[in-house]
């Protein structure tokens, strides 16, 4: 046992030496992950986008239409940045990207409302950008209904009804939306909570594949294995240990940012947070080891890891619900630890549900840890025989130079 621990420490020391020998490691293990985390935390920290630019096309030019314009401008969701003369102009501004929507107030709006001919107030929103479009649609629908209610209210008050019953009369049923179990959290903050682990997994995958693949490529794998007492298990554990520590710290730091900078509520103990981060990092390291074992030639395993890492955004299912994807992809999604991380994060940490509800996801994490065993012998033979090395034709500069010179002369 003692010899194993000694070998383990030896391999870890060797890896730390390697890590400090090139700036590449420092960049892709510390600097770039940190920058990505800070980027996502800072980009959406303001919460739901407010005051999106819209336009009002006012053909009416009356006191009423001016009031409509002011009311739209005063809503938290939109801000009237221009009043184009024609609809055509407004559409062009929308195409240029200066506004996300516009409202058309027709000719004779005030007169038609007064004499009860029900004019049509149209509004347009840019649905090519789904989020901005959805927010504008929601905001303008509510604002115009409020305005409609306001006109209604004026008429009623003129008829002598008191104010309390007026609200009940014009809007008998009032929908009151909450976010389940997280009334304080808003959507952008929630997106950030998913993007942080997605960024981390890219770095974990790439650096793990690289740190193993480079040993094969540069023919140092035998020396590495010797240092580990010829145990591939010790070799891998010792090598990956420093990365595990760094990435767990990064993952905990990303949670710290969520809770402290973005005020996401945390409803679970620190123990679970550490456990979740640890399992997450280990699962991705296991997958990366599996990739190198499968394709020991680094250029191919890096490609595979890149393909898989980029797909995580789609298949973790937050951009588009997994339940609505074709059956095949629902199964695919299971193969992404970030999906299980998301489940646990939502149910246990955000909503504060009992451990029982998240337990299946924890179990799935453990399954990922078994992956390296499937390829361990293939990997070992690749490390020993170094039979997966790309042939590099080295051009001899001096020779080329000499022949070049003779050509010129």
């Amino acid at each position, binding site marked *: 046992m003692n010899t194993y621990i000694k070998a383990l420490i030896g391999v870890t020391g060797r890896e730390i030496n390697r890590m400090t020998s090139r700036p590449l490691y420092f960049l892709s293990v510390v600097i770039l992950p940190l920058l990505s985390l800070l980027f996502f935390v800072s980009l959406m920290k303001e919460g739901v986008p407010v005051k999106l630019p819209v336009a009002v096309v006012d053909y009416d030019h009356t006191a009423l239409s001016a009031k409509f314009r002011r009311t739209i401008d005063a809503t938290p969701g939109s801000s009237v940045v221009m009043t184009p003369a024609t609809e055509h102009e407004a559409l062009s501004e929308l195409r240029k990207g200066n506004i996300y929507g516009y409202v058309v107030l027709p000719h004779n709006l005030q007169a038609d409302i007064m004499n009860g001919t029900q004019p049509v107030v149209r509004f347009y929103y840019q649905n090519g950008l789904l989020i901005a479009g959805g927010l504008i649609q929601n905001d303008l629908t509510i604002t115009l209904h409020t305005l409609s209610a306001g006109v209604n209210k004026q008429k009623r008050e003129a008829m002598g009804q008191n104010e309390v019953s007026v609200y009940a009369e014009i809007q008998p049923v009032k929908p009151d939306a909450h976010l389940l179990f997280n009334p304080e959290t808003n959507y952008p903050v929630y997106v950030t909570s998913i993007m942080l682990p997605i960024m981390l997994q890219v770095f974990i995958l790439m650096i793990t594949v690289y740190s193993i693949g480079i040993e094969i490529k540069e023919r140092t794998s035998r020396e590495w294995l010797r240092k580990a007492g010829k145990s591939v298990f010790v070799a891998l554990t010792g090598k990956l240990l420093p990365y595990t520590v760094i990435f767990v710290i990064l993952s905990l730091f990303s949670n710290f940012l969520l809770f402290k900078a973005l005020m996401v509520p945390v409803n679970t103990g620190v123990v679970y947070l550490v456990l979740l981060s640890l399992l997450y990092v280990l699962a991705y390291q296991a997958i990366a080891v599996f990739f190198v074992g499968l394709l020991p030639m680094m250029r191919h395993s890096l*490609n595979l890891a890149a393909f898989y890492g980029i797909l995580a955004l789609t298949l973790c299912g937050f951009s588009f619900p997994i339940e609505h994807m074709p059956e095949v992809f629902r199964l695919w999604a299971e193969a992404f630890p970030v999906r299980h991380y998301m489940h646990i994060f939502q149910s246990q940490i955000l909503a504060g549900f009992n451990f029982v*509800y998240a337990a299946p996801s924890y179990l799935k994490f453990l399954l990922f840890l078994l992956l390296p065993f499937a390829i361990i012998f293939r990997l070992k033979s690749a490390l020993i025989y170094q039979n997966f090395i790309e042939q590099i034709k080295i051009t001899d500069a001096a020779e080329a*130079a000499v022949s070049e010179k003779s050509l010129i002369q």
Partner: protein
Amino acid sequence: MKKIISKTFKRFKSAVSNTALIFQRELLILLSDLGVTILLLIVPVVYPFLYSLIYYPEVVRDLPVAVVDLSRTADSRAFIRKLNATPDLDIRYECISMEEAAGKFRKRENRGIILIPETYSSDLALGRQAVVSLYADMEFFLYYKAMVMGAGLVSIEEGNDIQVKRLLNAGLSERQAEVFSNPFVISGNAIANPAGGFASYGIPAALMLIIQQTLVLAIGIMAGTARERHKLGTLIPCDLRRMGTFRMVLGKSAAYFLIYALMCFYMLGAIPAWFGYPDQAGFSQLIALMVPYLLSAIFFGLSLSVFFKNRETPMLLYLFLSFPLLFLSGIIWPLSNMSPVWQVVRSIFPSSHAMLGYIKMNSLGAGISETGHEIAMLWILTAFYFVTACLVYKTQITKVKKLVLNAGHQDNSLVTAL
């Protein structure tokens, strides 16, 4: 005089033929390298196809929700029926208590809860405002939107019906009651993507990003491989015929441009046609956008390639940018709400302008003048990155020339030791 002309002509001729040689050589190396071929020819073909299949259902319909009806009256049942009739929602469970509904939510059997209060019917009867609570799952924006929009609109509609009924009871005519409760008609219209499809929104933008990302990665991998192959670890080979900054940059760029010009027919022509994505942009508009985009992305890649010392480095140092670039493009997060710092960071990447420009042309039907800002920015970036690419290659060439000249004078073994 004649001598100068013929000399200039000769120089020009050799420059052109050398550029063509570099172009030819770059194409040959590109296509003989499996890793790069996959990146250039397979990834842009497979990703759009895969994404299209994943997002095939496009929209979220029939979101499973639970209703907790504490009122249990004809009024509340009528409200539930209306909810179920909307395409957005599917009332899957009628629970007797909030605990039961929340229990089902924990097991992910429903995605939202609608709570109708005990006093619903009496509130209506007594002329008080009845408050219906919606509890939405925020796991997905689309779920949240479906829930809030679906239930919200039904509430407004239901309120309207009740109001009309009351006014009728008060003795108004049908038309009067209608005008009274709706002084004006509200009509909301979507410009582009009326169904709110996710693929129609996301995939065109993703196509644009894939172009830049695969280009920069491929150029970086080629540069890293070149450094590994050249004995002195230099970016360019020691071949004096190829030692001209412009012929180097232009020859290489031409090879990538050719490949991507061909790929664009598939990505921007075939994919939208097969999957029914928006395709309002005409051929001339696409040319106006894609020429500066491809050029700026290629020069951007060539400029960055100086940082990639090995074949693997671009994957480690550049790949991750795909996610931030997606969020910086203005497609997801509205530009009007982006901080000035990120706006500046955003504008140095060709993909940001191309993604937004493509969405404008393709989904909104914007013309070249309406996309003028994006196209101008792409040309500015093209010029900027062309200069940086030339500087990168110029310094590399000077370095190699120095090394080669030294090698000519000194012993070969010394060079090898370098």
